[in-house]
């Protein structure tokens, strides 16, 4: 930085503002779930945070038995995980709609098993609703505010590169991995060998989750998906039943040029 802001009275200006604060003044106050970096970058990108939006659903997962020796998707549980997240997300979006937001950034989707029994979990979607300062509409082609699980930093970078987020897309697959038969265990005893049954199960489950996520992106007529996270969690189902969860942000181009500024190399002195 060439000009030294302290020499121009930056701290005094800040303190003067505090001096003239009028507490208890009527008016709206915005809440955001953003860190300082994210807040400043979202502002810099031309958006104003409108408020914290959230949606929640406490959901009871039904019952389904996986056959002991069969690889199979547990579609009842898949549906439960899907439906509960959809409920939470749509409630969050409804809140953003009421605020007149163009979109929601920094969305977090959380699942927490709490005090109310082992089959029930709280599904929570939280994010910060934002509105564009230029007055253009940034909503997706279904007229809903866009959603994105990108951090404020990634959001800024995405816009710089000429892309806009359309919506969060996800795919879920709860899969029961077969137990090995006794004969199988015996025949492989002491050998380094692939277990094709297990490979197939995990492969299949991930492919299903990713294919579903892709379908959602196609429905939004997206050009692609960025920032995909592929997670697996056992929740409370034991080691052979696993949820495979794929989530990312579907994006569309806003400009023809996709030029990212040349990054500067930095040697960090911090650890």
């Amino acid at each position, binding site marked *: 930085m060439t000009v030294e802001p302290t020499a*121009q009275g*930056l701290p005094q*200006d800040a303190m003067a503002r505090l001096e003239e604060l009028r507490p208890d*003044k009527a008016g709206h106050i915005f809440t955001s779930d953003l860190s300082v970096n994210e807040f400043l970058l979202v502002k810099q990108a031309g958006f104003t945070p409108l408020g914290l939006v959230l949606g*929640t659903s406490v959901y*009871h*997962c*039904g019952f389904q038995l996986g056959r002991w020796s069969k690889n199979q998707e547990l579609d009842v549980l898949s549906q439960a995980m899907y439906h509960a997240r959809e409920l939470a997300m749509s409630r969050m979006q409804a809140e953003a709609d009421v605020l007149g937001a163009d979109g929601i950034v920094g969305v977090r989707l959380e699942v927490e098993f709490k005090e109310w029994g082992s089959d029930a979990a709280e599904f929570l979607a939280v994010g910060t609703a934002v509105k564009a300062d230029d007055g253009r509409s940034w909503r997706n082609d279904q007229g809903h505010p866009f959603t994105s699980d990108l951090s404020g930093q990634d959001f800024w970078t995405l816009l710089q590169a000429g892309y806009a987020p359309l919506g969060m897309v996800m795919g879920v697959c709860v899969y029961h991995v077969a137990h090995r038969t006794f004969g199988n265990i015996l025949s492989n005893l002491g050998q380094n060998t692939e277990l094709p049954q297990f490979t197939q199960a995990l492969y299949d489950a991930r492919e299903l989750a990713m294919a579903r996520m892709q379908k959602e992106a196609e429905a939004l007529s997206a050009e692609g998906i960025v920032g995909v996270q592929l997670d697996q969690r056992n929740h409370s189902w034991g080691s052979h039943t696993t949820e495979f969860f794929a989530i990312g942000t579907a994006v569309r181009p806003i400009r023809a040029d996709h030029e990212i500024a040349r990054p500067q190399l930095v040697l*960090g002195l911090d650890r």
Partner: protein
Amino acid sequence: MTVDPAGRAWTPEQIAEGSAAEIAAGRLPLRAQWRIAEQRARRDRGEPGSFTSDLTVQEFAAIRAVGFSPVGQVLGSAVYNVGWSYTGCGYAYGGLGGFAGGWSAAPVVPVPATQQLLNEARHRAVQRMRQECAGLGGDGVVGVRLAMRPYYGNGLEFIAIGTAVRADGDRHPKRPFTSDLTGQDFAKLIRSGWVPVALVQGVGAVIRHDDWRTQSQQRSWYNNEIAGTTQLVHAARDQARVSLAADGRRYGGHTVLLQTMDLQVRGQSCANVREGEDHVATAFLWGTAVVPFRTRASLDAPPLMMMRL
């Protein structure tokens, strides 16, 4: 025997007694007063080693770079007794059913006593920290770490620790600001034309009886939402959000940057219905209220894209 800065000698018992009286009168305990007075006097005399801080070197550098300097570490604490704050779940034995509580739907009931207690305890701790800051001649506190921990029996301690800072130049606010931002975040905010105002808190506490519908939804063989519990959790969070906005407005804030979001849920046996159960949800939101300010200083530095090595 301890000798205070004014030269008077105190026995430990006298200090304990005197401190309790000072706290009751809304002032800081004696040892805190002396520490602050001594540190202040040393700074005024321009002696070296006159400030303490728990800032990292980077935080220190960042704060100095925007024209603030640390004046000392400050602390505020308040221990509260969590008394009999019971509010019934508002559910009466309704109707003819043989179930505990009959067939009617249970309402979500706020627990104002809990909400008030948590707000008050927290504000006291922060206010004491601010008093220490004012005593040191600071303009605000950065890097505040807040903790709430159970203390012996029914006690609950709120504690706030941070570093008081002072702005270069001759403008100083009447009331010190507080913020849980790190030194780096503070510096970034100031450089971008925003200044922290105060720590703000939102608390929501609600209770709801597990009515027959909730119970049957919990035991179902099928996928379904537990509607009543969703309502409970949402009400707690929503109340916290409303109280956060009210808190922010009280300090004249413009935007709140959230730091912590927490929800605690516990079950307890119901006092209204025999063998019934209630669930209590408590939601917390902690953050810092900030306001933009006008300045002649040049702030228009666009972010640099960097690739770390």
